[in-house]
Every structure is written in C-alpha cells, then in structure tokens.
C-alpha cells in the first residue's frame, strides 16, 4: 500500500491517479495513524516551503514520518516541494527548518542578469549522476516536467542522483539517501517516463 501524505495543500489527485493507473493499492493519509498499513510513503507538494513544513508539523505528521521513514525504513518518495522540505533549511518567505533528512538548504534559483524565467516551468533533460535501479529503463537525459523557483543545494555530493542545467545553474533534480528518494521534477506529470520511474520506485529495494 502506497500512502500519500495529505497535509492539506495542493493537488494529490495526480499522484494518487498515477499509482492507481499502475495498479498499485494507494491511499491518502490525512492523519498520522493512516501510515500504519502502508509500505511506501509519498510526500507530494506544491506551494511554499513555509506553509508546507508548518502544515506537516501542525497536523502531527513529523513524529509519525520519522517513525515510518527513518526508524522503519519504508521506501519514501518526495516530489517537488515534498523533496525540498526534506532539507535542513529553506529560504522561501524567511528562514525555516525542514525535516532535515538531507544535509542541504533550499534557495532561490539565481537568474539575475540572465533572460531565464522564474518559475522555471517545463521539460528539462535530466542528467543521471550514476546508474541506479530507480532509473531502470529510462535513458540518461530523458525529459521530465519541472515547475519551481527554489532548488535544493546539497552539502553531500553523494546524495545527488540527478541534476539538470538551467542557464549556468546546475540544479539538483533528484536526491537519494538510504530508503529516501526525492525528485524536484514531477514524475506524475512526466508521461511515460514518469510512470516508469514511479513503477521503479514501487519495485525498489533500498
């Protein structure tokens, strides 16, 4: 059973539909107790860092997430903002502490003195740092869909599984650490390649 964390913000239906389409049992976790019968956890997200981490905290998810993700080691996927809140700190609308699962900070993409647009909306070629079962059947530099203005800057290069280039910026596109995998891009919006990645996530044995 895939459990999608519903902290009361944004569009969960696409993520739900994508797992459902792949034939997986999937449920929306509205309260922390809903994690009990899950074996995979997904933290989706659109919106701002501050609201996201506040809502996760207000809804009592932090301890339960820690129990299931860190202690029990359930395979976990963060998507977009769901990846960013796994950082130690975020700098959107003030400085805010994240879940701290990755030694990293979330900062605004630098577009000063360029003609780059923010948010960056659209398809970009994702460069896989090394071969990993999560990218099985997905060739390097495949296009995935992104929409964001902030990105995760990692202190440990070994956490980075994929990047993409936005002007001069080398942007973290995916991170991995033990049982935690997270993508800045939206697999649930990236057509066949995205569905392939989600199906790899289900099969993944961290």
């Amino acid at each position, binding site marked *: 059973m895939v459990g999608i964390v519903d902290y009361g*913000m*944004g*569009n969960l*239906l*696409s993520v739900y*539909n*994508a797992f*459902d*389409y792949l034939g997986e049992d999937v449920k929306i976790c509205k309260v922390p107790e809903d994690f009990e019968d899950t074996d995979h956890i997904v933290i989706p997200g*659109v*919106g*701002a860092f501050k609201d996201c981490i506040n809502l996760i905290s207000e809804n009592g998810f932090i301890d339960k997430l820690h129990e299931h993700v860190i202690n029990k080691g359930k395979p976990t996927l963060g998507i977009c903002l769901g990846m960013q809140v796994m950082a130690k700190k975020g700098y959107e609308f003030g400085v805010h502490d994240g879940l701290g699962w990755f030694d990293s900070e979330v900062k605004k993409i630098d*577009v000063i003195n360029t003609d*780059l*647009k*923010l*948010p*960056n*909306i*659209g*398809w*970009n070629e994702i460069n896989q740092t090394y071969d990993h079962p999560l990218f099985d059947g997905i060739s390097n530099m495949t*296009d995935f*869909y*992104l*929409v*964001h*203005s902030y990105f995760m800057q990692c202190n440990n290069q070994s956490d980075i599984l994929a990047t993409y280039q*936005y*002007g001069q910026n080398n942007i973290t596109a995916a991170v991995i650490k033990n049982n935690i995998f997270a993508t800045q891009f*939206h697999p*649930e*919006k*990236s*057509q066949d390649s*995205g*569905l392939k990645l989600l199906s790899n996530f289900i099969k993944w044995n961290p």
Partner: protein
Amino acid sequence: MSKLRLIPKLQLKPASYNSNKLVLVVTKQFDNIIEIGDPVSQSKIFQDQVSDELIFINIDSKNRQEISLLAKIISEVSEEIFMPLTVGGGVTSIEDFRLLLNNGADKISINSAAISNPDLIRIAAEKFGSQCVVVSIDYKKDENNKYFVYTNGGLNKTSYDPIEWALIAQRYGAGELLLTSISHDGMKNGLDLYITNEVSKAVNIPVITSGGCGLAKDFSDGFKIGKASAVAAGSFFAHRDQNFMQTRSQIYNSGVNIRK
C-alpha cells in the same frame, strides 16, 4: 532554458443538446462556435501524440454550476492523462481554485476575475504558489488601431493595454501569462508576434501565446520572433489531420528547442 512548449488548447462549452455536459468547440475571433467532440477522448489523443501540456478553458461560463462540470471533466482527464493541466473559464474565487486543483488541475487560469479583482491573483499565489496562477489576457486592436485587453470572452473592453496589464498581473504574483489575440483566434493567419514579443520582453515569468496558428512555421515564429516560452493552439489541432508529431518535428527542425 527549459524546453519550449507546444500546448493544445481545448475550448469547452455546455453542449447545445445538453447543458449539463461540456463539449469541445472551436471558435473564430471568439465567435462562430462549432461543437466538435468530447474533451476527454481528445485529451487521450493529445497524450498519445506527446503534447507538452494541455489547457482547458470553458468559454461560456454563465452560471456557477459550470465550475463543477469543468471539475468533473478534469477529474476524468486526470485519471489517465499524466501531464500538466491548466484549467480555467469562469474562475472567480479561491474556492474555485481549490475545487479545480482537487480534481486534478495543476494550474488555474483566470481572466475577467483578475481584472475586476487583482487581489485574487495575489491571494491565490500566496495560497497555492505563483506557479499555479496563470493570468489569461485576451486582447485586440480597437477601431483606433490601439491594443486593449478585453474580458468576458472578448465582449468587454477594459482600459488596459496588454503590456501594461501583463506587468500588473506579474506584480500581483502571476506565475505565467496566457496571451490570446482575439482577432487572430481561429483565423490561421499567424500569431500576433508584436504583442507576444513585447510582453515576453517586459515580464520575467513564462509567456504562453495563442491565437492564429495555421502552419508549423507560425509556432516557430512564436518562439523565435515572439520569444514566447510556449505556443498554444486550438483550431490547428482540432481541425486537420495534421498531427502533433509531425508539427513537432517540423518545429524542431526549424531550430526550436522543443522536446523531440
């Protein structure tokens, strides 16, 4: 730069034979409405042809009930279509945003409501993120050959010049702009490259331009001359055998950085 985007625009309205059902239509200059089919099955065709995103606009949203009809269509689409969906037409409140987002929309397009209440842009951007708020700008020249923004499906002239309004919308927190030339709509005579270019230069958020695509070259011009981040088209994809794959490779071969 992200890859530039090609976006089929699906215009909807309540069917003439059943006002509880939204059907796909094409228009000319926001008029001459022709009903051409079912939006859900057409979306699947666009998915198979690897379009980059889809835009759904209800062009005839007279009563409140139609937001729920629109939400129902999007909910059906999102069960099988896994690409970004922009949805609009008759959106006037944060509740409308939430309803459409909960039914699978990724971005919400607002037009008339943004003009009458620009704070809606700001509040929606704060609540759902600016990436979620697409301000749709319909424009044409008036009898004195000056450009103006129009609302309510082209019926009401506003006092805004499109470039001026684009800058205001950006300042209020819009994450993207969708430009439509009313006089080019459905005419297949090419995009309005002047306004596309002026707006793209003026703002630092992505600009989608639409209205007038009749040839692959029109799309290429929208990117190369208009400097748009995306080109959307309705009639072009609805009316002919011309399919997306073919158009895509013609545009790609003209040197535009789109997905292959």
